């Protein structure tokens, strides 16, 4: 009987699910240490204020209180570091104000930590935090992106004049100006990309532990990249060497970017655990998440495209203001620059592009990468602009896209904004999506809806993104302060079972299954014999974590390389055992055989020999079967595709219903189709959430108005219909798997598809997200501009 196929291409059920559906997941808040104390954070309720005094005497005297710490305690400790330095147009570096672990001197956003109380129980810590007497003197504050650079605007950091963090550009300004001067037409569109709050369902948690016997620190934290946290916190904040600091990120309940960054709470609990000689645990309440997790997006842009009389794109000019919030989060400066401006060629042959980006400080929560990170902003701008061009030119929205697509035979394709796409076929994804969405049948459906008094619209988005982050040399030259390779250690145990230690991290993506399928495929062992281990710097050699849809393309490639080494060594052992030359040994389906003979040895037999080397080429080969590979990708990967959204609007209420959503993506080689479909459906849902419902609302002073699930509208099951997902894949040409990545495509491609559909239904040129019922109703009733 043949074993079921479990390798690349099989929709096997997830290995991790059994513990999750049985309540046996091991999330950070499920972990408790003996003698543990609890930390509660007193956060600023003011957007901008001077700290006059903090009187902790009553809090310190309260029952159960162990310690109170303020910014003074951290004044001589490093601030939270920023991992990416952007340079201004003139070559000078960006302004990088210190981000204190606990606010010192001033608070700069609602949610900025002012003091922490550590007590025997959480309730005691909460009670005592209420007894802190904090005297704040309000300062003028600024929250709105567009107002931050205006003369006379309140200043967030004294060292950042005019609230400017950087003034950066990319592309050829002169060539764009020349093209604009002679173009048939220049189409202009002003747009905003709404600020979002990531809201992974698991709030952040940090638990610091200190071993007084060894002097070792352990941090348990809800992180997408424990090695990065170890490096940032150890080297830049607390001055702890790597060998004395272990960071564990166990099961993590979603991240979407928000758990990439090194947060203050991680440093506080680790430092305090050492200070107190006791474990210190902090668990965010959801209201804290809203005001302390990094937010996403928040761009204000003007886009202009020069076109010829046939609708061919000649030159693109973009000006963007990007809100950084009050401090620079770990990767914030890279998002509106190298993850955004470089994407503005999209799927089109636009020959010249010029992009200017000004990043500004405001009295709001720091903004950083959120699912897609820069690429959704670029895609929304471009795909909305293309619809506006079609409208202004009286052209068909699909045909103008086809006319400007990068031809199939033009790959590798060098864009004018630095990237070189290795592969893609935008015609194939477009055609498949049009078919799947029954685009041709839309006029009849629109007429039928109109007969019912409903407004129907359809929207198309033909997007491209860059992920598989990233070639270290390239990102280093662009300001990254880290390498972005990935690491895999493949350990074949003496009896043939296998542990794979990966530096990537799974927080919903299903790595324990997908990566085990890679091993099953390459080494010919059943999935049940493979364990994927992640999330512990004490077990895994190194790694850069999971974000930017990098885990399979980069981390999976590292595994392939490590398994290549296993096979190469196995061949030498097999050759010795079977008295043949290593060149004559073939490896297939878990069996080493001598070519042209019936002599063979299983991987298990070779593994046992490697660990019990009685009959072994010991003079030339070390025992053991355990190999590590560091894989640094040669290029980004470039998924792309077409999303088509059909909406129906009730003009009486302004409610937008998604009646049909079809995504056809090119994600390269697919390992587990079921998981890919789930990733795209989830990504599209988040994109629809951005387009229709979600908005991080601040008042002009910087008070967060959407500070709970009561005010910030999360998509619910009845807001959605089925999302039909298909793939039309071209292979990545530069990694051994051919995989491109699928984690972010949904959130990148979908928002403009939704808004293009809404604009089509309302017969308007543009509206900004989210298309809430109130906004749509106001447009229908002439109370607001489109």
């Amino acid at each position, binding site marked *: 009987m043949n074993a079921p196929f479990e390798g690349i291409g099989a929709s096997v059920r997830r290995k991790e699910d059994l513990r999750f*559906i049985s309540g046996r997941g091991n999330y950070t808040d499920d972990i408790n240490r003996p003698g543990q104390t609890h930390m509660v954070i007193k956060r600023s309720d003011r957007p901008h204020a001077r700290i006059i005094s903090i009187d902790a005497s009553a809090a310190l005297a309260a029952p159960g209180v162990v310690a109170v710490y303020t910014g003074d305690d951290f004044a001589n400790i490093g601030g939270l570091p920023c991992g990416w330095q952007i340079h201004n147009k003139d070559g000078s570096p960006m302004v990088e104000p210190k981000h204190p672990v606990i606010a010192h001197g001033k608070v700069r956003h609602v949610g900025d930590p002012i003091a922490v109380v550590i007590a025997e129980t959480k309730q005691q810590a909460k009670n005592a935090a209420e007894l802190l007497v904090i005297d704040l003197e309000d300062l003028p504050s600024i929250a709105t992106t567009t107002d931050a650079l205006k003369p006379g605007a309140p200043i967030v950091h004294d060292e950042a004049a005019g609230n400017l963090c950087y003034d950066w550009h990319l592309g050829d300004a002169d060539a764009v100006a020349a093209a604009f001067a002679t173009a048939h037409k220049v189409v202009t569109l002003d747009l905003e990309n709404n600020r979002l709050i990531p809201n992974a369902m698991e709030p952040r948690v940090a638990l610091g532990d200190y071993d007084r016997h060894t002097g070792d620190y352990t941090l348990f934290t809800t992180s997408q990249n424990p090695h990065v946290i170890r490096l940032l916190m150890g080297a830049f904040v607390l001055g702890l060497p790597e060998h004395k600091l272990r960071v564990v990120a166990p099961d993590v309940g979603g991240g979407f970017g928000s758990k990439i960054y090194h947060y203050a709470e991680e440093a506080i609990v680790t430092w305090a655990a050492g200070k107190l000689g006791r474990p210190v645990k902090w668990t965010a309440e959801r209201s804290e998440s809203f005001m302390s997790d990094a937010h996403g997006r928040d761009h204000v842009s003007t886009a202009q495209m020069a076109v010829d009389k046939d609708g061919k794109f000649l030159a693109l000019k973009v000006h963007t203001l990007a809100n950084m919030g009050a401090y620079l989060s770990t990767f914030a400066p890279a998002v509106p620059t190298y993850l955004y401006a470089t994407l503005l060629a999209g799927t089109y042959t636009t020959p010249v592009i010029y992009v200017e980006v000004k990043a500004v400080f405001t009295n709001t929560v720091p903004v950083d990468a959120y699912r897609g990170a820069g690429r959704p902003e670029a895609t929304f701008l471009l795909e909305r602009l293309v619809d506006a061009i079609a409208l202004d030119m009286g052209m068909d929205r699909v045909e103008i896209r086809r006319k400007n697509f990068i031809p199939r035979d033009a790959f590798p394709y060098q864009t004018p904004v630095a990237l070189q796409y290795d592969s893609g076929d935008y015609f194939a994804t477009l055609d498949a999506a049009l078919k799947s969405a029954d685009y041709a049948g839309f006029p009849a459906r629109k007429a039928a809806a109109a007969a019912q008094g409903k407004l129907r619209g359809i929207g198309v988005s033909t997007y491209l993104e860059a992920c598989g982050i990233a070639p270290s040399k390239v990102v280093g030259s662009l300001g990254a302060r880290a390498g972005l390779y990935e690491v895999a250690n493949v350990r074949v145990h003496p009896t043939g079972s296998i542990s794979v230690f990966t530096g990537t991290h799974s927080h919903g993506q299903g790595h324990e299954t997908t990566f085990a399928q890679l091993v099953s495929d390459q080494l010919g062992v059943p999935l049940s014999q493979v364990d994927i281990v992640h999330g512990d710097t004490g077990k895994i050699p190194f790694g850069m974590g999971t974000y930017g849809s990098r885990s399979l393309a980069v981390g999976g490639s590292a595994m392939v390389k490590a398994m290549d080494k296993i096979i190469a060594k196995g061949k030498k052992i097999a050759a010795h055992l079977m008295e043949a030359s290593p060149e004559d040994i073939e490896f297939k389906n878990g069996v080493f055989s001598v070519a042209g003979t019936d002599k063979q040895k299983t991987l298990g037999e070779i593994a046992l020999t490697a660990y019990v080397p009685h009959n072994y080429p010991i003079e030339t080969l070390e025992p053991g079967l355990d190999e590590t590979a560091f894989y640094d990708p040669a290029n980004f990967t470039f998924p792309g595709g077409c999303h088509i959204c059909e909406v129906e609007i009730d003009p009486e209420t302004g409610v937008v219903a998604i009646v049909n959503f079809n995504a056809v993506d090119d994600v390269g080689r697919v390992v587990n189709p079921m998981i890919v479909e789930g990733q795209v459906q989830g990504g599209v849902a988040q994109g629809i959430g951005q387009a229709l419902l979600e908005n991080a609302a601040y008042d002009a002073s910087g008070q967060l108005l959407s500070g709970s699930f009561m005010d910030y509208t999360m998509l619910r099951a009845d807001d959605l219909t089925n999302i039909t997902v298909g793939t039309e894949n071209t292979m990545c040409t530069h990694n051994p798997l051919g995989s491109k990545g699928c984690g972010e495509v949904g959130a990148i491609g979908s928002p403009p598809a939704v808004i293009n559909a809404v604009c089509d239904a309302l017969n308007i040129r543009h509206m900004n997200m989210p298309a809430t019922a109130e906004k749509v109703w106001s447009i229908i009733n002439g109370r607001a501009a489109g």
Partner: protein
Amino acid sequence: MPQVTLTVNGKSATVEVEGRTLLVELLREKLGLTGTHVGCDTSQCGACVVHVDGVSVKSCTMLAVQADGAKVITIEGLAAADGTLHPMQEMFREHHALQCGFCTPGMVMAAIDLVNSNPLGLSQDEIRHGLEGNLCRCTGYHNIVKAIDAAQGIMHAPAAE
């Protein structure tokens, strides 16, 4: 401190709690049943749903003392004694209805009550409406709806003679 006696997953437990202790805190912190999660502080997300006397309850919204004398079932208590999973658990796995797994325990508990309360069966639209008290950030819900739809077929099937 008040004393609460309740049955959790078939086992009797007597614990001392503060008056303000929530049922979810009792389950997680006193009984170590960490399968029940806390995802918000406004009773919106449903990660903490358990069954109290057979009805789904957001355990962050019920005081522990209110559960005195109650029979509570959590995600850990769903499988049969021999380890056989509840059909809802099976169908969640079969239909890839979970990704990060954090909302899953509450989602499964809410879904079981939803199906039990509607013996005539639910349409997929009705399932979507029935999930309005549970948030998921990963899946886009469709696979959850499919899993519940499949599970109701099994749960309502006439028992084999």
